[in-house]
């Protein structure tokens, strides 16, 4: 049975990202004849010489009219070995908003650079955002390698520079792979290129098919936000009381000791229920129903945690915000915070610093955070939340900041998660 890899792409304008995605879809035979016909017709209508594969991706009328990608698009392809969900994030319009969205669920991200230009500032910023969002693995596709005559030293230089940058951002070298490709011609995307005999690494698709799919991090303690209490009250199940949810981190087995937070009641997992019967274990990502040994007061919004490793339960914590709304953030803004299955009133008590886009440095005590800016803040919540540091547990370290008045999503919140340092994001000497 094949498994599932969620990935995101990121890149700047004109680096050929839509063409690369089109190439992956085309060479894995995920583009069907009628879609291709439509692309051919539309390309001819627009007076283009050849088919524009980016039209496969750009779905909205205004995108096609303007020839740009506005919004994250989700694409699907599969090989006998694996199924892929690809979040294609545009590089130029609101790049932080889109990259953050795509990266939040990605297990791997593909960054693109133009071999003729090498790493540019935006590549470094994208990598910093991907690192901040905890995407476990990076691939750098050095595109348009045909336009530098398949020159090994050009590729090697870019690969070395990027790997050093990624390591500075906290990646292990083994989690960063660089591939010389030509999306237009197809070199090393799906088919191995005859023009790069000096390259012994995997093709892009080979790597996507074989890279390990990790459930978030290893050795993370069990976390289970309670979504819903299942109480049938039917003649068949008069006293059934199960806590439904999706395992956010770690794993659980019957007999495990747990604590229900924030109240702190202790119990044992008596049973793990699913419609297929009882389970011997549930792991990260699985939707199950837990039956506890004791009669505790548990409801939606509570978090069931491993008893031997509890999250911090607090109403006052430092966090990194990626600000995604037009309305700017000012100190003492009153908002809602959604963490796990709990939504609580909160206010941002302090703006500690802002990651400056231009100088790639931090500004202390900024007056505001604006659209696409990233900053460190202090959050105070009306009710205590069981939080983990985002770098330790993505699911229980993440939260949304929501406008209490109109319900807009204002920011992606990461508990702790210090900003990338200047060393990590600057080009260096």
């Amino acid at each position, binding site marked *: *049975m*094949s*498994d*599932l890899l969620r990935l995101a792409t990121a890149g700047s304008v004109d680096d050929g990202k839509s063409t690369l995605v089109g190439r992956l879809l085309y060479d894995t035979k995920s583009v*069907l*004849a*009628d*879609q291709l016909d*439509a692309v051919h017709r*539309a390309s001819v209508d627009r007076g283009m010489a050849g088919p524009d594969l980016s039209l*496969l991706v*750009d*779905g*909205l*009328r205004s995108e096609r009219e303007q020839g740009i990608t*506005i*919004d994250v*698009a*989700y694409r*699907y392809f*599969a090989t006998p070995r694996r*199924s892929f969900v690809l979040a294609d994030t545009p590089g130029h319009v609101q790049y932080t*908003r*889109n990259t953050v*969205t795509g990266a939040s*669920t990605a297990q791997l991200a593909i960054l693109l650079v133009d071999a003729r230009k090498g790493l540019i500032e935006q590549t470094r910023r994208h990598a910093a955002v991907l690192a901040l969002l905890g995407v476990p693995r990076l691939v750098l596709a050095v595109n348009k390698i045909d336009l530098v005559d398949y020159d090994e030293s050009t590729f090697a230089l870019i690969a070395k520079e990027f790997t050093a940058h990624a390591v500075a951002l906290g990646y292990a070298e083994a989690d960063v792979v660089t591939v010389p490709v030509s999306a237009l011609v197809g070199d090393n995307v799906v088919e191995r290129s005859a023009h790069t005999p000096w390259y012994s690494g995997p093709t892009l698709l080979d790597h996507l098919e074989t890279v390990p799919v990790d459930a978030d991090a290893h050795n993370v303690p069990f976390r289970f936000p309670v*979504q*819903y209490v*299942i*109480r049938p*009250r*039917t003649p068949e*199940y008069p006293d*059934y009381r199960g806590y*439904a*949810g*999706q395992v956010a981190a770690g794993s659980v087995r019957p007999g495990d000791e747990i604590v229900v937070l924030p109240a702190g009641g202790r119990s044992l997992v008596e049973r793990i229920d*699913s*419609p*297929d*019967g009882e389970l011997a*274990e549930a*792991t990260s*990502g699985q*939707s199950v129903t837990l039956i506890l040994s004791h009669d505790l007061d548990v409801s*939606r919004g509570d978090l069931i945690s491993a008893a031997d490793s509890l999250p911090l339960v607090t109403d006052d914590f430092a966090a990194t915000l990626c600000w*995604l709304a037009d309305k700017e953030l000012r100190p003492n803004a009153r908002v*809602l915070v*959604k*963490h796990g*299955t709990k939504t609580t009133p909160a206010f941002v008590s302090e703006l500690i610093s802002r990651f400056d886009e231009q100088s790639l440095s931090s500004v202390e005590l900024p007056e505001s955070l604006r659209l696409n800016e990233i900053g460190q803040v202090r959050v105070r919540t009306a009710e205590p939340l069981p939080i983990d540091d985002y770098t330790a547990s*993505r699911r229980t370290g*993440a*939260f*949304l900041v*929501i406008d209490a008045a109109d*319900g*807009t*999503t204002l920011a*992606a919140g990461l508990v702790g998660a210090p900003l990338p340092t200047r060393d990590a994001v600057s080009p260096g000497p």
Partner: protein
Amino acid sequence: MTVIRKTDNLGALESEAIHIFREVAGEFDRPVILFSGGKDSTVLLHLAIRAFWPAPVPFPLLHVDTGHNFGEVIEFRDKVVASYGLRLLVAKVQDYIDDGRLAERTDGIRNPLQTTPLLDSITENRFDAVFGGGRRDEERARAKERIFSLRNSFGQWEPRRQRPELWNLYNGRHRPGEHVRVFPLSNWTELDVWNYIARENIELPAIYYAHERNVYLRDGMWLAEGPWGGPRSGESLERRMVRYRTVGDGSCTGAVDSTATDIEQVIAEVAASRLTERGATRADDRMSEAAMEDRKREGYF
């Protein structure tokens, strides 16, 4: 005790869909599931049943009935509803045409007419969350759709004002009069749906499997004879072995030539197909490059 480690593709998609159903149950007051008896809505219902087992599904079902139905599908719809003891509401396009609130289109296609009865039904019943079986792989505009998709009080989709969707933290906040469309199958492909139907042994209307039927050719599609006005002059009926890849309004849903009489054969056929299911079978999506986007903006599924 069984050990089922559902970390495979279908297991991951199933867990994601179940999580979405439970979020809606936890956060909304009046959800409803759109249910037509087609394969996607049947899978949707199957997932809802699994999400709340052993409790009953805590939502009613809504069918927006174009009046151009396949008898086998309505029969199947009613059988499923009865067997699970569910409550089904039906909003009928025909009623709207009969009393003049809607006019029949000159081409006889009724799919686009579903929007008004759907929106009226949402308003009358004060539904705040509406589950649909839409998938992002179906069509380019759908590829940009959120799992939780906010609709204004006119039911409209505003693609440029969509909320960013982060992690698995869905934001279902809405103001009075607004509602949220929810798509638990967003990340499924047509082949995933069929593989899941096989794995879970889910029953479908018989017309999804190859059978003999009187059909006529229009715009390159095999349409079935029926009260929706076909065949016209110049179109001739033929008896062919066909099956349906999608089931919608009879006036614009085409059949495909097929010999696939069981689920394994259907999966093999879908895997080998060189046409998308909408491209092969939906006249209403062929009208323009942005036909689906335009319908969605107006409040369509």
